[in-house]
Structure formats: C-alpha cells, structure tokens
C-alpha cells in the first residue's frame, strides 16, 4: 500500500484513521506511506526495552533494525525496499517512536503507575495529533507471540478470527468487581499495627536475627523499626524494658506474655483447630497460615502441638493427631514466621505421627496410614526448608528412620512410617537406602503374606508396606535401570517384590513417555499466558450483577470474625458469655481493642477472615475500654447451630460529647455466610469510640 502524498509535514507523524504513518525517505519514492496498524506497538515495545538497555550502555542511540522495516513493508505488500530507504525509514521511525514513548511516560507518571500501558501510548499519539490505535485495550500486557523458523525470528500480534456464534453462546464473564474503598490503620501513634493489611511487622530475617543473636543489645532507636509488635500489641513485657535500658540478657525468654486479646485469639484458634466443625477449622488454619502477627504466639502454638501429640498418641486419637498435623502445616505455610526456633518441639511431634506403633484405636480399620504419609511429607518439607549444615536435621532424621527400620522387632506400622519418611526425602535417599534393602524387606513381606496367618493387623501392615515400596521405588528404578525390563532379572535383584516391581516400572516408563510426548507437543507452539483476572471473588455464591462497593468504615473500633468452635464433646456449646477487660499495660492513652477483620471482595491478603489483635488510639485516656464477647440466641439459622454470637465493644459514654450512641451493623454477610455457623456481628459505638474515628 504505497501512495505518494502531495504534501508532507515532517513535524508530525501524520495519521489517518488507520494509523498510517508517513516517513520521509531518500529513495525514489518521495514519500512512503506505510500502513502500520498494529505495528506501532511493536517498535514501541522494542524501543522501550532498548531504552532500558540504553540506560546501561550510556546513551548510544538505538535504532530499529532495517530488517524490521523490510518485514513491515512486506506485510503490506511492498516487496522491494531499497537498503538506504530502509535505513532512512528506520531512523525516522525510531526517532518518532522514541518521542511517543517519552510522551507516553508522562502519562504513566500522571497515571501514578509504574507500568506503561497501551492507553499511555494512545494518549501520547493524541498529543501529537495522531489518531490513536483502537483495539489495543490490554491493560496488563500486550500478548505478542513469538515464532521462529527459517533463521528468522518474528514477534507478532495474534488477531484471531472470531466466530460470532461462539461469542453469543459463551456465557457472559463475571462482572469485574467495582471499585471499593477500605480503611485500615497504617500507623497508630507512630506504631504500625500487625494486621493483615500491613506488611508483616517482623520479617523473617528480623525474627531470625533475634533468635540467633539473643545477646545482642537492641537500642531504643532500632526497636521502632524491628520489634514494634511488643509495644503495639500492648504488652510491655519485662523483656521489652530490658531491651530499652540496653541491659544484656543472659538468656532469651522463649515465651512472651500475651495480651488478653492474644490469649483470646489463641483460645479461639486452638479450639477451632481441634474442634468438630470443619469449616471453622479451615478458617482457623487459614488464619494461622496467613496472619502476619502470630510471631508472638508461636511458642504457644508449638507447645500446644507437641503436648497435643503426646497426649493423643497415648489415647490413640487419630482425628486429633490429624488436626494437629494440619496445624503444623499451616504454621509452615505462613511466610512471616520463623519456625527454626521451635523445631525441637515440632519435629518430635511430627516424627511421632510418622512412626508411632499405634495411632488409632482400631488399627485394622482406621486409615492411620494417611496420617503417616501426611506427616512424612511435612517432615520432608521441613528437612528441605530448615536443614542446614549446623543442625543436620535431614541426616539425623534419616538415621533415626533407618535405625528403627533395620530393627527386626519393629512393627509393621513403624516400619511403614520409617519407609514413608525416608521415601519422601527424595529419590537419592530411595536409591541409597531403600532400594538396597528391597530384597530383605520383600522376604519379610513374603513371610507374612504367604506364611501362616499370625494376625490380621500384621497382614494389613505388610500389604501397606509393600504398596508403599512399589509406589516409591518404581519411578526411581525406572530411571536407574536400563530397558528392557526383565521379570526374572528383577526377581534375582529384588527378590519377592521383583515381579511386581517390574510391572510397576514398566507402567512408570510408559507414563513418563506419554508425558514427554505431551511436553514435546506443547513446545511446538509457544504460547504466552493470557491475561488473567487477578480478582478474588467473594465466597458468596449466586451473586451476580454489579456488586456494590462496600465500605468498611474507619477501623475505629473493630471488625469482627470469631470462629469459636464447639469442642467435640460439646456439639452445641452453652450460651457462654465472656467479658474481657483489657489490661492497660501499655501507655495510658492506648486502648486495646480486638480488631477482627472481615474480608471484602478483593481483599488485600486473604480470603478468609482473620482476627488479629491490635491497639487503637484514643483521644481521651480516661476511657476504660470494654471488650465484651456475648453469645446469645439469635435468629436460628440451622438447627445444629442455633446460637449466634455477638461481640460487643462498648465504652462508657463521656459527658463531654453530645453525639448519640450509634449502633450499626457491619456488612458481614460475606464472612458470616462463609462461616458455617453464621456469625452475626454487631458493633456498637459509644461516643468514646467515635472519637477514634478520623473525622
């Protein structure tokens, strides 16, 4: 598509509705007009990256390669472009595009973004009086594709032909969430509260530094940076005071005094974790896995787990052991916790769940094997994350497992646990420790399976050990042994288990081949990820249509979610009533209020509601805060859970204020529906509370 223009304005990119760019050139054609719809972004992308490159290599001017010009010309049907016209074109285009990119950056800055978007480029084109290019509305990134072949590399924008009927038949996508406003305390009188909305108060590094350098004297100045939580959570422990004075502590105290709110939280969480309600447990575990402020409670949780395992192994309470292991997993999942300090309690508990002789009341029926597997995986995970050359966790664990496995008197259950524990540690361990013992173990299994029936339990144990060995060893052997797989050869090498192993190995091989094929096929077409909506939808089902923005008002007093579980022995708890008085341990002007956070759609961090304790400043220090947890009967939701719980924070009204006492119900539909029990939340604000609001 070449046309010569009678006039050419060199000052501007001359644009028509189709994004036509004019370039002056020195070739025979006075003016070449290349229709470049869809092409402008490519050079821009190229140049933007080139300019980033430029930053490094000191301003050497980057110019589009002439091949690019040729390729563009070809794409619009211009076959033979002379070399010097290409050079002239590329220089001109590069300059104009740089100009546009520089203007586009302006729009990015004013848009308060770090990412340049297509709309910035559109706006920059508009500044230059050029019609913007329509149809490139990708917010996140430009889906360019890459292809190579015949020694040429090509980036292209894929414009698929769309079948209208497809569009009509596909269901409408979910309406994107509307903009909403959410308030939280970024800082309270100079201290940043540890709530999910804020970054974790003590990063792992800080926690580590504290635990590894316990004798380090912390200066008051540093305290503000690092160990805020001690203060902000209202516990001025003797610990903290010692630090402030710069006294050298001989031994760090492993536990911290917890504030009343933290104690309450601890109680709620632990009860939910071992309680009977699965939904609550999920919430509680989610809270453990995500909340940034749990660092202070970690020693408590650790002790809770280790004691819990000790007691419940004796009582053979399989369910509780499983719950406790899930707690361990949640703790390990929490990215803000530095667990190293507590491994001495956690690892024995986990190992117990792997190798204990008996974990349940009826070993022949109950699936305690799953618990062993799960715990073994936890063990492997902690080996991976925590094992260092100084603590040698992995080698110590391996030794422990091997030793009891080698013992002839070891029971099948323990045997199973040892093997599982070892197998989870990876293929190297399987290769060096398990495979050499396959023959011996096979003989032992054979003795049980084919010998006289001793006990049903032994037989089940042997069966499980056998399938465990087959499962883990097959894939490793598949990689170790060359093909073909000969049954007799396997029998001589691995004894009783040989033939079964052989068939498993063959299965593993075919599976691996299949996977490889699939991988090969996918490499043929290189696809880039499509933009995904990073929208976390609320747990509400059946809510369609535009959702209204929900404002949670200034977090003056509290938001609440309280999963209080019924204990297993008490399926329906009696109407309990707590009245919690916050201790004014901290500064007199600081009130302690429980902040329970319900989540709004698209919440900052977590889907789940997560209670965290914090303090709230109050203008008047004379007010005594009153945190009251009440449970009473509300509108019955389900028969099993007739009780609704109200948590009320009330503060005595002060005479100086003339505002009315307000009581408003927070929008808790989301959290309450996701909670199986359905909590209702009520907030009552007295004038005292309202003085904390920012207006």
């Amino acid at each position, binding site marked *: 598509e070449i046309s010569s223009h009678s006039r050419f304005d060199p000052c501007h990119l001359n644009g028509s509705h189709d994004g036509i760019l004019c370039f002056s050139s020195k070739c025979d054609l006075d003016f070449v007009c290349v229709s470049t719809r869809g092409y402008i972004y490519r050079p821009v992308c190229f140049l933007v990256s080139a300019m980033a490159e430029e*930053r490094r290599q000191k301003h050497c001017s980057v110019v589009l390669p002439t091949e690019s010009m040729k390729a563009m010309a070809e794409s619009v049907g211009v076959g033979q472009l002379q070399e010097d016209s290409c050079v002239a074109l590329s220089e001109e285009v590069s300059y104009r595009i740089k100009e546009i990119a520089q203007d586009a950056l302006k729009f990015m800055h004013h*848009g308060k973004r770090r990412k340049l978007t297509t709309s910035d480029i559109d706006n920059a084109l508009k*500044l230059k009086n050029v019609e913007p290019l329509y149809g490139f509305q990708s917010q996140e990134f430009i889906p360019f594709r890459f292809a190579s072949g015949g020694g040429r590399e090509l980036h292209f924008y894929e414009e698929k032909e769309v079948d209208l009927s497809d569009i009509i038949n596909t269901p409408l996508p979910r309406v994107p969430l509307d*903009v909403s406003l959410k*308030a939280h305390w970024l800082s*309270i009188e100079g201290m940043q509260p540890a709530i999910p909305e804020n970054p974790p108060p003590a990063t792992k590094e800080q926690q580590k530094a504290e635990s590894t350098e316990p004798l380090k004297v912390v200066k008051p100045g540093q305290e503000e940076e690092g160990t805020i939580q001690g203060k902000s959570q209202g516990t001025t422990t003797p610990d903290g005071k010692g630090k402030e004075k710069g006294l050298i502590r001989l031994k760090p105290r492993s536990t911290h005094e917890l504030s009343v709110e933290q104690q309450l939280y601890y109680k709620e969480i632990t009860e939910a974790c071992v309680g009977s309600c699965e939904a609550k447990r999920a919430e509680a575990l989610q809270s453990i896995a995500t909340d940034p402020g749990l660092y202070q409670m970690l020693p408590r949780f650790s002790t809770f787990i280790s004691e819990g395992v000790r007691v419940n192994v004796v009582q053979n309470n399989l369910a509780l052991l499983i719950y406790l292991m899930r707690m361990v997993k949640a703790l390990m999942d929490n990215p803000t916790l530095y667990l190293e300090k507590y491994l001495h309690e956690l690892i024995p508990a986990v190992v117990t769940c792997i190798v204990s002789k008996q974990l349940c009341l009826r070993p022949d029926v109950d699936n305690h094997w799953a618990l062993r597997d799960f715990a073994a995986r936890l063990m492997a995970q902690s080996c991976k994350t925590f094992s260092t050359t100084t603590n040698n966790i992995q080698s110590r664990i391996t030794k422990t497992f091997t030793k009891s496995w080698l013992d002839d008197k070891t029971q099948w259950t323990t045997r199973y646990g040892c093997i599982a524990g070892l197998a989870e540690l990876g293929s190297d361990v399987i290769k060096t420790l398990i495979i050499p013992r396959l023959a011996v173990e096979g003989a032992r299994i054979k003795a049980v399976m084919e010998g006289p029936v001793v006990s049903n339990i032994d037989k089940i144990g042997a069966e499980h050990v056998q399938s465990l060995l087959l499962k883990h060893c097959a894939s490793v052997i598949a990689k170790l042994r060359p093909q073909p797989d000969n049954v007799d050869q396997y029998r001589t090498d691995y004894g009783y288990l040989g033939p079964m192993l052989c068939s498993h190995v063959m299965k593993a091989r075919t599976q691996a081949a299949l996977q490889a094929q699939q991988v090969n096929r996918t490499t043929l077409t290189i696809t880039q990820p499509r933009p995904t909506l990073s929208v976390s939808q609320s747990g509400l089902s059946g809510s369609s249509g535009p959702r209204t923005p929900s404002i949670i008002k200034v977090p003056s007093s509290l938001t609440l979610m309280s999963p209080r579980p019924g204990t297993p022995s008490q399926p329906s708890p009696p109407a309990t009533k707590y009245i919690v008085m916050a201790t004014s341990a901290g500064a007199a002007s600081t009130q302690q209020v429980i902040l329970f956070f319900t989540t709004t759609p698209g919440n900052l961090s977590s889907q789940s509601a997560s209670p965290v304790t914090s303090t709230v400043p109050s203008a008047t220090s004379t007010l005594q805060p009153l945190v009251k947890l009440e449970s009473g009967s509300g509108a019955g939701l389900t028969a099993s859970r007739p009780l609704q719980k109200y948590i009320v924070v009330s503060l005595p009204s002060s005479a100086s204020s003339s505002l009315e006492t307000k009581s408003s119900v927070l929008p808790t539909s989301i959290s309450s529906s996701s909670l199986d029990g359905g909590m209702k939340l009520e907030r009552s604000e007295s004038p005292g509370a309202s003085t904390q609001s*920012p207006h």
Partner: protein
Amino acid sequence: DMSLAKQSTDYFVTLYTKQPSADGFGNNNANDGRVLSASPGSSSSTGSNKQTAAVTPEDQQTLLAVLQFLKKNKLSESVEILRREAGLPENSLDPKANESAGAGSGGAAGIVDLEGGDASSLLSRVTGSSSAGAQAPTKGTVQSGCSAVAEDQPDVSVVLSAYSQQGDPTLYKVYYRDLKKFIETVLDCHRAELSQVFYPLFVHMYLELVYNNHESEAKAFFEKFSGDQECYYEEDLRILSGLTKKEHMRGNETLLDFRTSKFVLRISRDSYQLLKRHLQERQNNQIWNIIQEHLYIDIFDGMPRSKSQIDAMSGSLAGEAKREANKTKVYYGLLKEPEIELPLDDEDEEAENEEGKPKKKKPKKDSVGSKSKKQDPNAPSQNRIPLPELKDSDKLDKIMYMKEATKRIRLGPDNLPSVCFYTFLNAYQGLTAVDLTDDSSLIAGGFADSTVRVWSVTPKKLRKVKSAADLNLIDKESDDVLERIMDEKTASESKIMYGHSGPVYGISFSPDRNYLLSSSEDGTVRLWSLLTFTCLVAYKGHNYPVWDTQFSPYGYYFVSGGHDRVARLWATDHYQPLRIFSGHLADITCTRFHPNSNYVATGSSDRTIRLWDVLSGNCVRIFTGHKGPIHSLAFSPNGKFLASGATDGRVLLWDIGHGLMVGELKGHTDTIYSLRFSRDGEILASGSMDNTVRLWDAMKAFDDLETDDFTAATGHIHLQDNSQELLLGTYTTKSTPVIHLHFTRRNLLLAAGAFNP
C-alpha cells in the same frame, strides 16, 4: 494543528505583556530571546559586549514572521497592536529592560488582561455581585489558532537559524576538550563553578552540529562527552541522543525550550574572569559565541560556591533562577480570619494563634490582646484580591472548624499522628487522583476510565437534591428546609459522575463542599455539583491534558495547569481564565494555592517551581534544585514555607520570603505524589510511589534555619544533611502507592492510594 494553538496563545501572552522580558518569551517560538537583545540582567552585571546592533535585523525578521502569522489568521486587531508595540523595543528597549531587571520582576509572567484594562479592576469586577459588564469581549481568538491550518512555520525556522553560523565541525571536539582541560586545571575553588558551563555548552554544540547536518560528527561528539555530564541531566541527554537529524529539530519542544530560553548559571566574578580570559586568549570564538548568545551568566561578588552548593541548586531545564527573579516582595502572611462569635471564644483564639504563629514570643502577646489581633506585617491587605463573602453556612463551618481545632492533638517528635489508610480496591491501576474535603467527610477519586467518584466516609450518605417538581411541594418556610430538599431515595455511599472523555488527573473539593473540580486528559476542567451530582461547567482553555487543578482556600477561584505549560486562574462563574501564568518551559505538573489565596505555586517537568502573584500575574519566585519533574507541593499552614516533592524522591523545603532553599529531605526511593503539613505545621507527611508514608520533623527543619543576611543576599545556601534526624517515621503499605495525604482537623493523618496487586 494544536502546536500552533500553543504558539498563538504565546503570541498573545507576549503582546499583552506590559514588561516584556526574556523569560516571557520562554516558550514563544517566534522569539528566540534575542528580540530583547539586552535582556534584563545580562547587561546589568556582566558588562559584556552585547552586540545589540547585529541582532536587530533578526528581530525584525521575527516580528515580520509574527505579523505574517497573525494576518494569515485574520487577527487584524492584534496585528495593529503589535505594530504599535513594535516601535517600542527599538527605541526604549535598553533602559526599560534594565529597569525591569532592577525592579526584579523576573517578569516571566504574561498577564492576559483581556480588555487591556487594569488587572485589579477586572478582578474586582469579577467578584462584583452582579458581574455585569465583566464579560470580556470574546478574545476567544486566543484559542482560535487551534483551528488554524498548519502552514509553513517561519517562526520555527527563525529560531533554528541561529545555529546556521558555524565553525568547522571537526573542531568542536577540540574546542570542547580544550575547555575541559582548562577547567580541570584551574584552582579547585573555581573548578566546580566553571564545570557548570559544560552541560549547556555540550548541548548547544551538539545541536549546532546536528543543525548543520554533521550527523556523524554530532554522534561522535555526543558519545565522547555525554558521559561527563552530571547524572541528573540523564533524562535530557536521552532525549537528545535520539535527535540526530535536522528534521527532528523542528517541532521538538524540548529543543525549542532549550534554544529559546537562556540557560542561567551563577558564577562568581573571579571564576568568570578566569573563563573569559582563557577563551579570549585562545581565540575560542565558537564557545564564546555560545556563551554570549545562549547562556545567561549571573555574576556575583564573593567566594565561589562549592560543588555541593551548586549541585543543590542546579538540575532544572534552564539552569538556576536568576537572583533578580526572587527579589520581589511576597506577602506570605495569612489573612485575618473574620471574627465570628463563638461560645468558646477564648479557647478558640488560642488555638488559632498557635496555628498562625507557632513560633517564639508572639503567641503570648496575642493571646492577651485577644480581640484586636494585629495584622501580620507580611500578610497582604485583606482586599488585595477580592474574596467571596462568607455565607451563613461558611460561618457555621468555621465554627465547626474551631471547635474541632480545640480538640486537635499537638503533634511533635514524641507524639506522632496516627495514620488511617484508605485503600482503593479493584481499581485496576486506574486511580489517578484523590482528594478529601477539609472536614474529611468526603473522599473523591479520579480514574483513568474518565469517571469521578465520590464516597462518603462518614455514616451520612450522599443524597441528591429532589427534582424541580418535588421541590415545589416543599414548605420553604420550614426550619429544616435544607434537609427537606434532599431526596432520601438517592442516598448511597458513593456516587459516580460521568463527563470527561479521558483520564482524570486532578481533583479538588471546594472549601464549602458544594462543588468538585476535576481536570482531565481531554483538556477540560469540570465543575461538578455535589448537591445534584451533575456537571455544571466545563472550562475549556487548555487544549492539552490538564494535569492538576485546585480550588482556592477561600473558594471561588481555582487554578489549573497542564501540558500546554501555562497555568490558568479561573473563577467559577467565568468561562474564560482571569489570569494566564506563562513561563514554565515544560508541562505544569502540579498547582497549589497559597493559604492566603494571593499566590499560586506551580511545579513543572522543567524541574522548577514558580510562585505567581494572582493580582498581577507575575512570576515572583523561581525555585530550582529538583532533579526530576515535580509532582507535589504543599504550603506550610503559616504560609512561610513551601515543600515540594519530585520524581527524584527528594522533598525540598523553601523559604518563600527569602526565596531560598532551606532543606532537603532524602529518604524516598520513588516519585513523591503527596505532601501535607499537619494543621499546626509541626509535621510534614510525604507519600510516595515507593509505598511508604514518611513523617518529617518540620518544626526542626525550619527552626534550624540560618537565614542571615549573607545567605539571603547572595542566594547561597548551605544545607546540612540531616534527613535522618528529621525523619520521624516510615510506614510501609503492602503494595499501595500513596497518592494522597490529608490531615484531619484534629491532626489525624489520612492517606489514600490504590492497591496494586
């Protein structure tokens, strides 16, 4: 053609400027600055051999070009005026220019006085209740150029033709190296000062090479010497590096700016003599010519400045500010508050005093003689510019304000404010502007999708006024008529307002909370009613994106600034601007009213801040020192100081009265989008793209000042690096850039930003 529009606007600015000066032509393409060959100052202090005669023919050429252009656009009236004016420069230019320099007008401002009448009379008429004859005859021709067809641009070529005189292109390198060698060998005390010459020389030499089609020489020159330049010029160098052909130079705004404005250097007399002698000895005319024509050297007597002193002040697109530019008296004091009867009289008085003058002896004295508060000697007279009268509702609000003020928390290093953060969720990177009302009851957001949204952050919901038919049914005599006119059915927590056709970059509530202003990429500023939630006016004037807008603290007036490099002062009931503040060399990125409403500060991409007098339209202060586009400004509550934040992550503090930089706060690692002083001015809060809110000890920063006579006279500053001592707190959000900050009346800090997943 929009660029023409800009030019034609500039013509008018020029034409109506009573005191033309070099700066006034800053972005006037037609005048390359040599129209006024003896531009203010250059002749006054240097005594350099300015060749006035040699330039005259080119002046005429320029004038002819302008006349030609005007004729073409049928602006006969303007042609006449220009003709008349054209006689003046030749006759009386030199003495006049010198006078104006002496008066220190700095004269960067063009006043667009639409009827050519007295500026103040216009203003007073504007505020007159009837506003009858205030209708300025439609000099919409100011903008009419935008429809003009793009023709040849003689002006541009005139500008560029200055480069046509050339030496041997191969010698440029030698010249430059020669000078470099010389400067490297001079005494240490002079080296730093003379090194300032490098950058402007480098740019001009490079441009000359490019202009004369010595492409390869230009490239070689650039590669050889670009590495020597100060790192803060990197952005400009990058733009320059892309420019390799003569054709590129046309229509390149950055370039034209550089060409048309003289780069200002401050050099001590000794250093200057050294340089001059060297160049004359070497017969280095090439460089001498550039220095003569394109640089403005502000010579001072006294000790040469140190490297750090120079670095603190340099960095802007056109060098430092001339000392003369900052000499005008600025009435930075606060206006006297109207006396309102209050039940809690004494307490409030006290609170107010604390706010006004938190320092030294004054408060005692004032609190004794409570009623007859003296007028601040630095304050402008109460009616210097006409301000709207207080309505009953305003008085009620004032009373509320004073009541709140009594409950205000005294902040300080030991008593930091709490920060409440408003996070915009699901904004999909689209939040571009935020504002809060003074009483913190409403929050508004401007979005990239052209919408403006308002939220109520109190339990009180937003309601519209009832329809006209329903309003008729209301008993107008009842006491609660204001309540009755509201339509309960429309109550909601937020309202969306549609109208703009581009991203909304600036947003501002009126002090009485009845209106909201928004400025957008589409070139308009819109006024919205917060009673009906509809658009009332679209103010057109900026043809390019309007980056910021703000209401005057007394309402009625507002200021806007944008890509077209001019700031405009408007009154809500006029569809045309009352003042046009022109002088910046690049986009105006932020605008802010002085607390006394008599001045307007603008920050720009040219890395300068200018303070404009609303009354005269003159530029009264130019602050240089930032190394990146300025994105936030804040006046201290007592009106004495200004804080500015830029993309370079630094906050600079300025003393308005003395026109000096008085502090530098380092700590942020990315653009600072928001600055705010606490209500009593003790704490400065800054919010940045680096996801932090930082609090600074403003009291300490200003108390430690040594504004003795010497520094004030020479404009030298010596900043101590005490950012760490002044930093009181850093609060990091998870992933939310902080784009707005606001202190409530009780000194709680509110911050806002959009979560950026």
